[in-house]
């Protein structure tokens, strides 16, 4: 079982990878059957409804590839983000070598640009309740499942392609 301090260390390191746009290293944190889910309504079964993001590992790879290897408009200029990780809790996992972890995150995001550019230059704040299922693989903790429920998950959003 992870201690709260160990879980927090893991989550802060993950947040740093995203803030530093080290997306390929972030992707490598996921297990081969890993899922990344950003629901609109967390009470619904994601297979039979529509989510903001519901990535299996293949889709997650496409997401990272799009951000890092293609001429993507909506992340050019790229987002700057600062993530605060707090309220970390650990719970028993679903099987041997597994661990459930919860935290809250506050994500500040901004894209810089020239004067008067709509959509750029103003920081916005996203608050999220996050749940993780971590699995011990080859002596390392990996993400088997990550759920990010935005405070305003069911409200209209501006682009979220920076990976919330």
């Amino acid at each position, binding site marked *: 079982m992870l201690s709260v301090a160990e879980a927090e260390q893991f989550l802060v390191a993950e947040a740093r990878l995203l803030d530093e746009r080290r997306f390929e290293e972030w992707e490598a944190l996921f297990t081969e059957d890993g899922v990344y889910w950003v629901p609109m309504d967390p009470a619904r079964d994601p297979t039979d409804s*529509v989510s*903001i993001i519901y990535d299996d590992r293949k889709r997650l790879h496409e997401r990272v590839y799009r951000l890092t290897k*293609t001429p993507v*408009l909506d992340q050019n200029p790229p987002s700057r983000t600062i993530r605060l990780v707090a309220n970390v809790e650990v719970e028993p996992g679903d099987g041997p070598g597994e661990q459930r972890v919860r935290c809250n995150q506050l994500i500040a995001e901004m894209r810089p640009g020239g004067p008067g550019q709509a959509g750029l230059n103003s920081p916005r704040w996203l608050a999220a309740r996050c749940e993780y299922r971590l699995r011990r693989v080859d002596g390392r903790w990996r993400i088997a499942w990550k759920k990010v429920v935005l405070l305003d998950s069911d409200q*209209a959003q*501006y682009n*979220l392609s920076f990976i919330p």
Partner: protein
Amino acid sequence: MAVTQRARTYGDLVVDDPREFRVHGSIYTDPQVFQEEMDRIFEGTWVYVGHESELPAPGDYKTVLVGRQPLIVARHEDGRIYALYNRCRHRGAVVCREERGHSNFFRCRYHNWVYANNGALIGMAQASGYPEDLDRSRYGLVPAARLASYRGLLFVNLSPTGPSLEEHLEPVRKYVDYWFGRSPSERIQVILPPHRYEYPGNWKLQAENGFDGYHGNYVHLSWQRVLQLSKESTVEEVQQYRQEGCVRGLRNGHGLLERPGSLNPASSWTARMMHRYPEYAEAMRKRFDDAQLMEISARRNIFVFPNLYLFDTHIRVIVPKAVDRTEVQLYVYALEDVPEAINRSRYRGHERFYGPAGFGAPDDIEVFTEVQTGLAATGDPWNLLHRGQHRERVVDGEVIGHTTDEAPQRSFYREWKRVMSQA
């Protein structure tokens, strides 16, 4: 005609020049134009408010904005759907604050005036303060002037005058019918909640873009690279596909972008699904002949003036909030009576491209913000929409153009001009 910063009439802002169709930038930036659009277009013509499958049971309701005005759309115990102004007849408070839910009555929280979900006034707190013979039938929630359904698509018109919904939809109706035809029972079921995104730009930027076949190879190049990564199709194949089909500018401001239909599984989604799922093929062939299947399998983005798009995965609703702020709602739907796996793959396919974190829609949103920013520069205040004007042809009242041409945009602005310059 010379047009200064503020036009004398709204009609001057759309110049229907046969060689250089153009629109004035102020139609996207002038708050006065926006207020007039709300008065004349959104509060004076047929506006889409939802699909009947969102309100399956008596008591189900949703709240919407029609232009600037709050309304409740509710299914009463008589099975009928009612569109009611969300305003207590007493002192004006809304009687419902939820986005959607289930209730047989609406209660104003200010002084407990209570209304049935067909609008009828049931009673109020301390009713003895009114005469015993008070005619309650005079004080119900006010219904929208008109509410009508086309095959479950619900439209409200706050004006009692003007064309019927049937007349309004007539030029686009057959395409809407083909759109339903991918379900062998020709029925859909909306899946809630919708994707919702908001951008700092004018609503017409979304209206102009949904049937724009010109931008795809540039704005969505990163999407094409993702398809290539997954070995679904090469960038060259997608770019070739984006040259096929046509655009159609229809009367009454409607329009569409169309990719050719095919019965070959390699060339259309419908044929591919029929090939993959024999039970689907059987049901489709039982309902439709080959000529109909050719039309049904054509992939179309269908625009219904002024706020509705029908896409292959979703119903798209444009919600103008301010001259430079727009919400867009994407209601994904299930095709009824098709294998579950078909719908699930449609949901995953939708998520992949659309929504605030999809691999395509955010690129469009980004471009809308770039246009809105650029329009502040008024050295030459005109936007050009004359692409393909020299090569379009008119067949049965439809203006048909090359898939990258701006024929549907011109149809849209001709209707905009007509409605905005009415006396």
